[in-house]
């Protein structure tokens, strides 16, 4: 037995390892079933899935990758939060600081930005894939509605985050965006006023968008995702085959 094998065996036989993973590495059907059932992260899946649903070209993993991007955005976003203050006088310099002097700050900001655009794009594509498979038909009608809410939340997450760097792109994009929505009357006030917290994009807007971006929308999206995934199982797993 080589040294590495002995170390491997030693780890697997240790009390700590066996308390962590109650089964040995799953090599047969029974232990593989256990592995999925007994793991809090994996048990979102059934133990067995229908064959066509496993083919990459059926789902293109688009829903799963949207969720993965959401996780990436959560992790990178929390890191950025440590160095960012949502203040009209400080936000922009904080971004410059993140890019120049925070460890992996530039990389984290870049990944957060690209993952955000990609998530909106993937959610759109996921919706197309679901539509062209007719996967919104009974019994999955309501999960489609949950999906539309998720699409809305994903776009709003991206839009509220867009303002935070507080540069010219952000300022004018949000000005245009809220101008468009501003004509919808809400509670007898122009919705623009509610969105902006004033007549134009300013400190109130930044704080509102920040709170929506880091707490409200992620939380609501997480809840809707939980419902979305739960219902996939309850509706009998992935639709198809075509």
């Amino acid at each position, binding site marked *: 037995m080589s040294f590495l094998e002995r170390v491997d065996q030693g780890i697997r036989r240790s009390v700590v390892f066996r308390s962590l993973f109650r089964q040995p590495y*799953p090599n047969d*059907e029974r232990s*593989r079933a256990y592995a999925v059932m007994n793991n809090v992260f994996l048990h979102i899946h059934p133990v067995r899935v229908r064959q066509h649903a496993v083919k990459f070209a059926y789902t293109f993993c688009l829903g799963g*990758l949207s969720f993965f991007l959401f996780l990436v955005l959560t992790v990178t976003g929390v890191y950025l939060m440590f160095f960012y203050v949502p203040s009209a006088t400080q936000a922009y310099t904080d971004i410059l600081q993140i890019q120049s002097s925070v460890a992996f700050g530039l990389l984290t900001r*870049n*990944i957060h930005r690209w993952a955000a655009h990609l998530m909106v794009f993937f959610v759109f594509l996921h919706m197309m894939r679901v539509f062209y*498979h*007719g996967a919104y038909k009974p019994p999955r009608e309501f999960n489609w509605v949950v999906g539309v809410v998720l699409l809305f939340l994903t776009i709003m997450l991206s839009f509220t985050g867009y303002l935070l760097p507080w540069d010219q792109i952000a300022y004018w994009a949000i000005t245009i965006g809220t101008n468009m*929505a501003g004509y919808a009357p809400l509670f007898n006030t122009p919705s623009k006023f509610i969105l902006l917290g004033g007549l134009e994009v300013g400190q109130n807007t930044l704080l509102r968008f920040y709170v929506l971006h880091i707490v409200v929308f992620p939380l609501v999206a997480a809840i809707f995702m939980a419902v979305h995934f739960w219902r996939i199982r309850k509706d009998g797993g992935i639709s*198809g085959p075509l």
Partner: protein
Amino acid sequence: MAETQSPPERRVTPVDPSRRTEIDKQRVPMSARPYRLLALVKQDAVVRVQKEPDDTVMTWPHLLAIEFLSAAVLSVFLLLMGLFVNAPLEDLANGNVTPEVAKAPWYFLGLQEMLAYFHPVVAGVMVPTFLLVGAALIPYVDRGDVLAHKPSERKTAVVLFSLFAILGLLVTFIGIFFRGAGYAITLPWVTGLHFSL
């Protein structure tokens, strides 16, 4: 006389008999583990009427491998993007300095393009509301055969949806590439690209 040492057994201590309720008496005794998987049983009726072919595979490894692989590929892609393409950042926000052209984020550019043709109430309120509510209502409006999943079996739905998708793509495309200073129509190869992600 040697006492035989049986291996220690994991047991659930029974409820104190003096405190047993009616429900406790009816309870099926459980082993230390609240549930056990004895075997994987295919769902067969006692009387086999017609055996459906089993078209399922184990989640581990078949589904998990694909999920892991696609997540890994996407991670590498994100890492490369993060390393080699910087997120845009312009000058400090200034409400007094109007840029050459102000564009909304790309997913709203279709709506901004509509703004060039219609009254703001139409482009900014009615169109997005119609799109979202309309999308949510699709499963209830499509009263076609529930079992018809192939696009060829539900041509009307597919054509209508595709029409909206292409229209959306088109206006977004114009907004991204063919709108320049002052949101006037331009050609990107003449005046350059006015767009940032």
